[in-house]
């Protein structure tokens, strides 16, 4: 079976800092990969390269068997790889509902000058997602007025609206209180299950990783230091020392 996402020899440095160090990596359909790693290990950079925001110095990225290295984010999203952001990226002057509607219309590629956004026929999808992430009450508020936790939710919800084949989530649970983290992950996993979406999520909380990941990859200084089943990787002494700080 060919990999859904595959990178070969991906390298990138910012000035003197090596943010990606010869990364060979592959992901298959149906996996749920947790990415762990200390601050500055290069997790976000890896996502940025895979989704086309930054060009690597060398190496290649393949999605669904096709080379997508240094393609634009727009092109990559259209091929079915979406992402969410560590710092929520919303349309601050639009309402919660409009953000989701925009995602819905974008997925159907039905942007038009003649149909009102509200009437673009993705109504049920929007309502469903609103219900799922619990933002129905605030759907008509401006994104600007949401607290951080809910911004995070909306950010992920916008990517879910795209119904991608692969969704990469950059720390979906950061900024969310510890009790709510599990609820949030339940919701996300349920939605991903329903859409049959393969996923990667960056996560710092070991409990969450253990519970929801089918596979774990640990990043150290821009390189993948360990990759495999959660039990194995999390029990690795190097990983425990360097990444988990135990």
């Amino acid at each position, binding site marked *: 079976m060919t990999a859904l996402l595959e990178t070969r020899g991906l390298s990138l440095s*910012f000035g003197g800092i090596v943010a990606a160090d010869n990364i060979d990596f592959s992901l298959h359909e149906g996996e749920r990969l947790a990415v762990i790693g200390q601050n500055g290990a290069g997790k976000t950079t890896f996502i940025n390269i895979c989704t086309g925001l930054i060009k690597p110095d060398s190496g290649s990225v393949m999605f669904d068997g096709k080379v997508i290295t240094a393609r634009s984010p727009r092109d990559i999203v259209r091929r079915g790889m979406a992402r969410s952001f560590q710092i929520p990226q919303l349309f601050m002057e639009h309402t919660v509902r409009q953000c989701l509607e925009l995602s819905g219309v974008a997925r159907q590629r039905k942007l038009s000058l003649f149909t009102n956004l509200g009437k673009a026929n993705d109504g049920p999808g929007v309502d469903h997602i609103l219900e799922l992430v619990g933002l129905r009450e605030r759907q008509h508020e401006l994104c600007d007025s949401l607290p951080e936790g809910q911004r995070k939710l909306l950010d992920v919800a916008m990517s879910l609206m795209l119904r991608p084949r692969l969704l990469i989530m950059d720390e979906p649970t950061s900024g969310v209180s510890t009790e709510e983290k599990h609820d949030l992950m339940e919701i996300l996993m349920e939605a991903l299950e329903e859409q049959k979406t393969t996923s990667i999520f960056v996560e710092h909380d070991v409990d969450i990783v253990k519970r929801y990941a089918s596979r774990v990859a640990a990043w150290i200084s821009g390189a993948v230091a360990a990759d495999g089943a959660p039990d194995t990787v999390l029990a690795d002494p190097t990983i425990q020392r360097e990444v988990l700080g135990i």
Partner: protein
Amino acid sequence: MGVDTLLLALIDGVSYAGLLFLVALGLTFIFGVVRVLNVAHGSLYAFGGYSAASMGIWFAQGAGSITLSILALILGAGIVGVILGYGLMLLLHRFRDRDPIIQLLVTFGAFMVLEDVQVMIWGTQPYFVSDVMFQMGDTSLLGVVFMNYQLWFIPSVALGVYVLLRWFLKHSLKGRQIIAVTHDREVATALGVNAGRIASFTFIIGASLGALGGALASPTTSLVPGVGADMIVLSFAVVATAGLGQISGALIVALMIGIARSLSVYFLPQFEVVMPYLIMMAVLLIRPQGLFTVAEARRI
């Protein structure tokens, strides 16, 4: 086309570039610190010119002293720079938290006001006070006669100002604070830099540079209403072509534009006025952030 025409064009271009550089330097310097493109900078140029001419008429005309004439230029520029620079800073301070575009529009409003104030003070009759240019005499190069004022004086003042400003920014405490604010306002403020005072200071220096450009230009052309409006678009072109906030870049681009313009005066006269804009478009086509801005990777 002979060598002498080429020389003529070159010297003209360098002299013009000197003026353009001074004005653009003021604009880009202010932009670097307060992040506002100051449309009223065009008025500073005009006011500097008029005020220098008035000073000249008042105490230097007929006195036959170069020192007095130069003093008139400097005093004219300085007074305008301090008063209008400070005034504009106070005005913009009230809009400091607003969108940069809105701030730009505020300076546009200030420009409209100043245009009329200028007419109220100096009227619509052309002003032309050129004593200093003749006092400085001329030099003959390859059989072509050049005014020393344009050949030496303007270019050396421009270069002098550039060197002085670079030195000041690098080696003085205030200069370093300015660099710090330019780099990251929040961090600089957190480290105890008084951003407000830095802004006033920057505004006064930047405004004085604009006014100095006008003052130095005043002996070479007659001053009429509208000179400010023409100058500001030109210096916008220099600043954008060089990259916003780029001081050394502004020097090089001013030279490029100045020389290209005067070459076209001699060889392609129809293109004289559009030259700066054509250069700007060509440069931004290849380097969208300006010639000297290093593109940074976006961080999300």
